[in-house]
């Protein structure tokens, strides 16, 4: 078995990714928040965000992608799980059964009318969990390749 290294670094990809990346991340957030009404949601948003970071990885290198994320992806998995699990709890304080959705309307000066809810919190948990899980796999393998 002879090891073959592959190199995808190219100037075009490099430039393109630095332009695309912020857009992709914004797009993923957009997908996440509109998911309750239009196609999108935590899964799709999370996958888009993960793909964005993975793009960075391929365009530059493992270190750059790692630095951009700042935290270890496994931590994201943990945070996502905790948020999703927390979404189950508020209902208990209102004497309703576990995981019953709660809705709060908030009027903020700049953003206007804002709908907050436990399903949204849950979806954010899913979002972070998916990013974390996918990136853990990708990073781990890239690291193995790297060393």
């Amino acid at each position: 078995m002879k090891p073959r290294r592959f190199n995808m670094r190219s100037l075009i990809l490099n430039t393109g990714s630095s332009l695309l990346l912020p857009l992709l991340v914004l797009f993923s957030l957009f997908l996440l928040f509109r998911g309750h009404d239009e196609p999108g949601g935590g899964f799709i948003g999370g996958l888009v965000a993960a793909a964005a970071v993975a793009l960075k990885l391929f365009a530059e290198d493992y270190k750059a992608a790692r630095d951009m994320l700042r935290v270890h992806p496994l931590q994201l998995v943990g945070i996502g799980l905790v948020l999703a699990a927390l979404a189950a709890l508020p209902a208990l304080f209102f004497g309703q059964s576990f995981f019953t959705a709660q809705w709060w309307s908030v009027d903020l000066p700049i953003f206007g009318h804002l709908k907050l809810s436990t399903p949204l919190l849950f979806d954010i948990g899913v979002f972070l969990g998916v990013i974390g899980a996918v990136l853990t796999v990708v990073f781990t393998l890239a690291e193995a390749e790297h060393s």
Partner: protein
Amino acid sequence: MLIAVLSCFILACFAPWVHRLGGRQSGWLLSLLPAALFVYFASLLPEVSQGGQLQFAYPWFPGLQIQLSFLIDGLSLLFALLITGIGFFILVYGGRYLEGHQSLGRFYIFLLGFMGSMLGLVLSDNLISLFVFWELTTITSFMLIGFNHEQEDARKKAHQGLMVTVLGGLALMTGLILLGLAAGSFELSTILASGTLTEHSLYLPMLLLILLGTFTKSAQTPFHFWLPNAMAAPTPVSAYLHSATMVKAGVYLMARLHPSLGGSEAWLLILTLFGAVTMVTGIFLASRATGIKRVLAYSTVMALGTLTMLLGLGTEKAALAAVTFLLAHALYKGALFMIAGILDHSAGVKDFRDVGGLRSSMPATTAVAILASLSLAGIIPLFGFVGKELLLEAVLSASIWQIGLTVATLVANIMVVLVAAIMALTPWFGKTVETPKKPHDPNVALLIGPALLAVLGLLFGLVPALAADGILTAAASAVYGQPVTLGLSLWHGINLPLMLTISSLILGLIMFRFWAGWRHMTRFMQTAEKFGPEVIYERLMLGMTSFASWQTKTLQNGYLRNYLITTLGTVIIIVGWALLRVQHLELHISFDDIKIHEFAIVALLILSAIIAVVVRSFLAAVAMLGALGFGVALLYVFFSAVDVGITQVLVETITVLLLVLVLYRLPEFRSLSSTANRIRDAIIAGATGLLMTVLVLAITGARQLEGISEYFLQNSGPLGHGRNVVNVILVDFRALDTLGELFVLALVAIGVYAMIHLRTGALPVTNSDRRAAFNFRRAQKEKSKAEQQTKETGESS
């Protein structure tokens, strides 16, 4: 009541510490519990002996109709008193008998655990909890038989006892469930009150299954062989479990269920037949054995057979005889076993042939042994005599096989006298035989149990009304199902039973005179044993293990391919057969509503799947998979599944990246399989594909029940405040499922991370690796030494 049962288990948990604190006296200390329980149960006597019933119930699994309920009537109270009373002596005795044994603490745990289980068993009012306690006694018995687990023999015998009783336990469970279903209740008190079940259509299977359980537990022929082998346990255990209490659990259950299940032809035939055969077999084997505990064990088998036979007869007299005999047997057999233990402990003898003339060195033990043996032989005025008279009377008035049963009982009685004479005379009289230890009368802790039990045998014999009014009449009433009016008395006048007793006494003593000759005469048994049930049992066990290993080797062969072929083959055959058998199977085949772009996509997908299979380059296969994934995504979008389509596209992208990242370094495809294998696999794969196609065609349009999707469509807006119904399902309606999925993803992430990062230990270690590691460590050591030296020189300079 719950506390009474649970206290044994709780104390069992703390027994090792009590043992450590109490030291030599720990047996006395722990025995306070059974003593207190005995007093408690005794305080219930006045009410129960008046025919009263006490019930206690605690909810356990309310949804399954299982509650922890207890029923106290004459029968269960008799057993509870025996368990706690004899348990008290056994703890005192066992503490001294096993003094200095390294696992004495463990012994206490199991013994107390057994006591709790046995109490639970006899006091349970619920069939399920009764069964649970039943199995618990089996398990503790297993632990105690194998107490000396360093010895292979003890392990083997413990295993044997466990297998036989667990097998019976399985049958029993089925039988009890049938019984509960047939009676419409799992509460014994309700079942017993609702009258007889002998007319029920499930009566025979239920009876046979329950009897299989009780026969194995109570060592009825042909399952009798495990009981003598259980004598591998320490003697206190044999005295307690395998003579006075646990083996009587089967008898208890038969007695308990007699009002419901008894009285039928089947009950009468099976129980009397098996009981009589066991009785004769047991005592015959006892008369041939020479090991002290073995003789006693076989005579216990005889007693269990007698009890079964009496329950089979089921008359008022037989019920009274059964409980009387049971009490008498528990008293004298418990005492005799403990004496056997004393002989081992104080003189070091285990066999009747190695002992004699101990009466001068062990006078107190001799006296107790003779007293207990007299009760065993059934000699006036001991309690055993009362039991034996009743037994004979019950047999003489039997409704079937009167003469046969009487002869069997007579034969058994003759040999019981022989056994009693051996026990009462051989070790103590005659020529003094040198024993391994210097014989001496034991400590009071060892002697108090047998002495008090033997004296009780004498007391109840002299004043039988004491036992009768106290408990036996109430117990017999519980067995019989109606109040028993007969009383007990010592002297029934000169009648046929008395004649029979006297003649069996004389014949038994003659047999004792020629005991050695008798053993010689019956030596053909050694040949017969080669075909006995124990050998059959061993053959079965061997066969089972070799079958299991053959099956494992054949089915679990370690080739994924073979598992797949087996599984798929089964699916194809079963589902295919079912499809063929369906009447009016409608396959909804129609090519009408196909749009051209859809057709193109499907055609491309089929093509790329085929290419992915046949292509020889890995990268090409991955490219095909990518194309295939995007095509499937398009199909989702065409057919209204927007979210699914987007997800599929994204996942497909990342999958392709991943495959390239990882598998790129793997070797190119090779041809590994032979052509024959390829053809075989193609046939299996093709058949599976065809089956799935037919299945889809058969299922679509055949929906019979309304789905729940309509609910989601209707309520997503009003309840979920969301317009994307799929997302509302994911994060609101079915959020718990999604949370579970998130956990799976987290596990994958952790698993992947661990597999790559924690890799040091997993690499194969070769000799050169080890040498390299060794050299490295040595170099390190020298390096640090050198550093230290330079430091020192630097400091000194």
